[in-house]
Every structure is written in structure tokens, then in C-alpha cells.
């Protein structure tokens, strides 16, 4: 009332305020889901980190134990997808991108260890889920272009992949500690293949570039492990 009439139509700011308030409500709803996902990601990595101290023969136990937390994360991602799809995707995606990457990384690592479609026999290590396969596992679309809905982006996949390579680098060393001289070779080849893929990307100066620049050190780390093994004649013969 103290504002002299004429200059500002009060409806302008009322309208803006309600728009901003709506966004805040959306954010709050998403925040709850994202926090739940964050917790489940921690559970996944808690279980999967046992792979670093588990001999290959006992790996099935780890895989079994990881089923539940992964299932939980899948459900939460579905919930997130449902809530997020009501909004323009890129308006809010920075709210969950980080947590989705962590979930992807967990699932990539789990699949690499042989957890996907695990039949109870000897796990088959070394597979890389494609973006599409990840989407199927999580039951969400990937790399959408024509629809403005929740999906997993290429960037999220690639970032998760770099984190997974870090995990594998660790595993290469820890496998040796456990007396497993075969897995480092497998990891070596895998990491090199991933690295080769990253090298053909034209990356700009962003987070993906930084993470991908770090890959060469991981390649070197794993090569060092293989070098140590071959120097001591520890490399299993059939592999050479």
C-alpha cells in the first residue's frame, strides 16, 4: 500500500513468487529421493568394497550380498525418474546427477565382477555394461533426445566409468595381495580398452575432461602391477 500505484503491477511479483515457490516445492520432493539414493549408494559400495579383500573363489558371496542394496537403488532411481519426469529434465538434473553417477558406478563395478545375470557358477569378470544395458538394469531410459524426460546421459555414464576404472586399479593391486595373478591382467586389458575409447573423445575443459585425463595414471598404475608380476615370472602362462 505504501508503494505509489502505477510503477509496478503487483501481479508481476506475485506471479514470480509463486513460480519460484513451485520450484522450491519440486526441489524439496526431489531432495528426499536423492538423499535416499545417496544412502543406498553407500550401501552398495560398502558391500562391493569387500571384493577387494575377497579371494576370487568367495566372490559369489559378495555378489549375493550386493543384490539387495542394488535392488534398492534401482527402485529409488525409478522413483526419481517418475518425479523428475514431471519437470524439464535439465532444469533440475544437477540435483541428482552426482548420485546417479555413483549408482551407475556401483552397478558397473558389480557387473564387471560378474554380478549381472549371475548364475551361481564361477562369476565371469570383465564385462562392461553399455549405456543401454545400464538403462535396462535401472529400468530407466538412456540418452534421450526427443523427449524431455528423465534419463541417463552419456556424460553420467562416462563419469561413472572413470570412477569404476579407479576402483579396478585398486582391485588390481589387491588381487595380487590375495595371490590372484590373473585378474590384474584382465584389468590391465580392460582399463586400456576403456582408455583407448576415451582418447577419441574431443573433450572440453570440464569435469569429464579432468576425470578422463586422470585415466592415463590409472593405466600406468595397472601396468606397473603387471610389470611387477612379469618381472617375477608370476604371470600365469596361458595368458601370454
Amino acid at each position, binding site marked *: 500500500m505504501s508503494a505509489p500505484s502505477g510503477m509496478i*503491477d503487483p501481479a*508481476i511479483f506475485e*506471479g*514470480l*513468487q509463486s513460480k519460484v515457490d513451485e520450484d522450491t516445492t519440486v526441489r524439496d520432493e526431489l531432495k528426499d529421493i536423492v538423499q535416499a539414493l545417496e544412502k543406498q549408494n553407500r550401501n552398495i559400495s560398502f558391500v562391493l568394497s569387500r571384493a577387494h579383500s575377497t579371494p576370487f573363489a568367495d566372490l559369489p558371496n559378495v555378489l549375493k550380498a550386493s543384490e539387495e542394496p542394488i535392488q534398492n537403488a534401482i527402485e529409488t532411481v525409478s522413483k526419481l525418474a517418475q518425479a523428475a519426469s514431471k519437470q524439464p529434465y535439465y532444469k533440475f538434473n544437477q540435483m541428482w546427477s552426482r548420485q546417479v553417477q555413483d549408482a551407475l558406478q556401483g552397478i558397473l563395478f558389480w557387473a564387471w565382477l560378474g554380478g549381472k545375470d549371475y548364475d551361481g557358477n564361477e562369476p565371469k569378470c570383465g564385462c562392461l555394461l553399455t549405456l543401454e544395458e545400464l538403462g535396462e538394469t535401472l529400468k530407466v531410459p538412456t*540418452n534421450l*533426445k526427443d523427449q524431455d524426460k528423465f534419463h541417463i546421459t552419456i556424460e553420467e555414464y562416462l563419469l561413472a566409468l572413470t570412477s569404476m576404472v579407479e576402483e579396478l586399479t585398486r582391485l588390481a593391486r589387491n588381487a595380487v595381495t590375495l595371490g590372484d595373478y590373473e585378474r590384474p591382467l584382465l584389468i590391465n586389458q580392460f582399463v586400456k580398452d576403456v582408455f*583407448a575409447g576415451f582418447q*577419441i573423445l574431443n573433450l572440453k575443459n570440464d569435469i569429464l575432461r579432468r576425470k578422463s585425463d586422470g585415466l592415463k595414471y590409472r593405466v600406468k598404475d595397472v601396468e606397473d602391477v603387471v610389470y611387477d608380476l612379469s618381472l617375477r615370472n608370476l604371470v600365469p602362462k596361458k595368458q601370454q
Partner: protein
Amino acid sequence: MMGPKRSRDGEMKEEKLGRADQAASPFMPMFEGFRTELDQHHDRRERIIKASRDITAASKKIIFTLQRVRTLGQPVPPFVVKGNAQYWETIENQYQNIAADVQGLNAFRYPQITGGNQEFMEALSFHHYLETQTLISYDESKERVAKMSGEAGPVLLTPEDYILGIFDMVGELMRFSITAMATNGKLPAGKPKKESQVKQEGKEQESADKMDVDEQTPATTRTEEPRTVLSDLRALRLQLEMFEPGGGKFGADVRKKADVMRECVDKVEKALYGLTVRGTERPKGWVPEVREERRPEVESY
């Protein structure tokens, strides 16, 4: 450093050597697909960053010219229209250039445009204010950008862009007021309402002078006093302070700009005080002591 080119060459050589452990990565086809799409994404982003920069530059030039206007509530003089025409055109072209890049899914993908949008908003609202002495609405501004974007579809002007642009516009109003006070010795005010214009044609000057002393003098006559820039600034300040931005980056930006906005209104009030107290003693052409502090740049998202 390993550039992408070298790696591709290297890969080919390895294939020729045919060494099993150095064969092309099985993931190559997948990464080739990624490369194509990431390249497209980067191209779009680059175009938008460039457009945002060009829109910002053109908007600043528009504002600069507008600061030479000395009237309020009437069409800007021809020299302004002529001088600014090219900049409005630049802005329109830039919006058209990127319109196709920000449709559908990509509408919110490139926040880099926010810098240009805010600066454009500042120019647009300032221009609108000078001509009509009112605040342009969000819907009208959004519509304006959409119209400039052409057939590919609208470039989105978000409520955030609008608000942040209006905050900056306060700074322009401050400068406009101070300059007017320095050169004319009074605070710019609009024309009295039609009714009063007819009745008190000759008293316009007088009533305007009264306004300078205290624009809140209760109207003694039936006629409405014309509003001054200061009363408009206060109205704006009131609205902007009432506004709750919520948290996040936008909230931080708003709080930062709110401080600057308050300073701007204060400066005009202080200058007016000076004018009131020692107005007649003031030598012609003396400029009130107000440092032209530009607001701290709030970087785009």
C-alpha cells in the same frame, strides 16, 4: 599430451601389427557414437556462450545510449532510437542463432545463456521504464524474447533471469537520477496525469519543483502529483525486498544483488538530500559525490 588424433593413428598401426593384446578396443564403436554426440553438444554450448556474450555486449551499449535520455514517460528521442537500432538487431540475430539449440529437452541444458538474458532484461526494462515509467512485466519480457527468437521456437527467459535483470536495472535508474540531478538540478519525474495537464498546464514546472523537495508531499489539489524516479525506486525496492528467492545459486545471487540495489536507492536519497539542503548554493554543473560503483558481476550459472 595425447591428442585424439595420435591415438587414432596409433590404433591403426596396432591393428596392422595384429598383436592380440593391442588390438583395437572392443569399446571403440560405442565411444565413436559418444564422440559424435558430445561434439554436437559442445558445438551447441559454444554457440550459446558466444550468443550470450554478444547479447550482453549489445545490451550494455543500448543501456549506455539510454543513459543520455533526459526525459521520462515519453518515447525516447530519435537519436536513441537510431543509435540503438543496430544493437537491438544484433540481439535479435543472436537469439535466432541459438533458438534451435534450446528447444525441447535442451531448453534448460545451457544455463550459459543466463548472462545474456539478464543483461538484455536490464536494457529492455530500462528502455521500457524511460518510455512508460512502469516496470515491464515478466510475461511481456518473456514474450519479447520469444518473438525475437524466430521460427525455431522461443529462447526461454526464466523468472530468475528476469528478477536478476531487474535488480541490475535499479543501478541504471540510480545513474539516470544522479545524472539528471547533476545536470538539471532536479529529480526526473513523469508528466502529470492528463487531467492535471489540462487544468494546470502552466503549473507543471512548479509542481515538479515541489516534488524535488519531498515527493511524498500529500497532494493538496485534486490532481495527481507525477511520480519521481525516486518514488519508483522505492516501490521497486519494496517489491524486491519482499521477494523470497529460496535457496541455491539463485538465492545467493539475489542476496548479493539486493545489497547493491539498496545502496543504489540510498545513493539517490542521499543525492536528493544534498540537493534539498544546499540546492541553491550548488554551482551549476556540480556533480553530487556519488562514486559510480558498478555492481559486482554475478557470474552466470
